């Protein structure tokens, strides 16, 4: 199909073609994301006995911990969109298991992640209703600094705003998940610290988690929605070219596909993007960088 053919299409025809293309990438089982969820968690958990018992140097364990905690979000993200298995299907338990266990190192409860993330999809870039709008910033360095600011105790945005989002959608009960996760997290940190393992706790969990939160916010929230001013199906998300490539940006260069069709697995978004690109251009999407 040529660019001229697409330019001549009506809105209805464009939508029909767009859906036909997207359908080729939907309903694919993300084997790698499932493997990734458990393997990644296993690597992070293994660091603890390796450091405590086998003498793995902390300077080696720290970057591994930072990478694994950073990578732990994406399998849960697949589960949040029911990509592994939809409700009522045979493998639904696996979807929920991946969702719950993969973000343990990030201290992010699955139900909070899912409910607030779906609100982000419903209200992307909305100044009041998008729970992730607080990461909007004029440039990359200010985006990193903004995440640091939003992680402060009395910050209004970031994860501190998730409670307000849950109340707004009538699910304040889910805040309890966050309370439990945080009590356990800080309880373990304090116990390790007073037991003589403060440096280990800091470099295997506390500091890597902060690195991960910054990295995830940067590539999942800031970069694909920058400048965060437009709303609407074809305007609120963009494709972008990262200096770190698609793997280094955790597949987020093609995040626009995810916002149009959230149930396309992460590993299929590059192919779906290139298939859809003429349609996205016809729709006036921000796809000039890639």
């Amino acid at each position, binding site marked *: 199909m040529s660019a001229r053919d697409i330019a001549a299409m009506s809105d209805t025809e464009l939508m029909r073609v767009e859906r036909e293309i997207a359908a080729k990438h939907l309903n694919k089982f993300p084997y790698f994301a499932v493997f990734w969820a458990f393997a990644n968690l296993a690597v992070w958990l293994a660091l603890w006995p390796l450091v405590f018992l086998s003498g793995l140097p902390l300077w080696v364990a720290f970057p591994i911990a930072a990478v694994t905690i950073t990578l732990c979000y994406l399998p849960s993200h697949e589960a949040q969109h029911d990509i592994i298995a939809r409700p009522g299907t045979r493998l639904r338990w696996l979807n929920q298991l991946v969702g719950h266990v993969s973000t343990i190192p990030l201290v992010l409860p699955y139900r909070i992640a899912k409910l607030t993330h779906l609100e982000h999809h419903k209200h992307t870039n909305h100044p009041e209703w998008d729970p992730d709008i607080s990461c909007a910033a004029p440039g990359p360095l200010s985006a990193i600094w903004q995440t*640091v*600011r939003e992680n*402060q*105790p*009395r*910050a209004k945005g970031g994860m501190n705003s998730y409670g307000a989002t849950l109340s707004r959608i009538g699910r304040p009960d889910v805040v309890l998940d966050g*309370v439990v996760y*945080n*009590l356990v997290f*800080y309880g373990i*940190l*304090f116990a390790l*610290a*007073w037991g*003589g393992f*403060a*440096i280990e*706790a*800091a470099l295997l969990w*506390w500091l890597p988690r902060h690195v991960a939160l910054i990295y995830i916010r940067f590539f999942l929230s800031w970069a694909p929605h920058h400048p965060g001013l437009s709303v609407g199906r074809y305007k609120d998300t963009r494709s972008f070219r990262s200096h770190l490539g698609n793997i280094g940006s955790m597949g987020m260069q093609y995040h626009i596909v995810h916002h149009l069709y959230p149930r396309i697995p992460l590993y299929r978004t590059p192919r779906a993007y290139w298939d859809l690109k003429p349609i996205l251009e016809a729709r006036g999407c921000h796809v000039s960088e890639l």
Partner: protein
Amino acid sequence: MLVVIKTVFHFGPLLFGIGFIAPLFAQIMDAMDWAAPFGLNSLVFGLIVGGAYGLVAQIRGRWI
């Protein structure tokens, strides 16, 4: 129970200063062979530093 949990979270920065930063600071000092001033042991000095930093964060609502 709810009041206890809310109080714990309200004083989060102060508790973090005492519960985590203090022993972390002390153990870093020990690892680096740094001596605490005024003849204090490293844990007492860590509690002073961590407690003070936590108190400042508690009042300001931010660590940095």
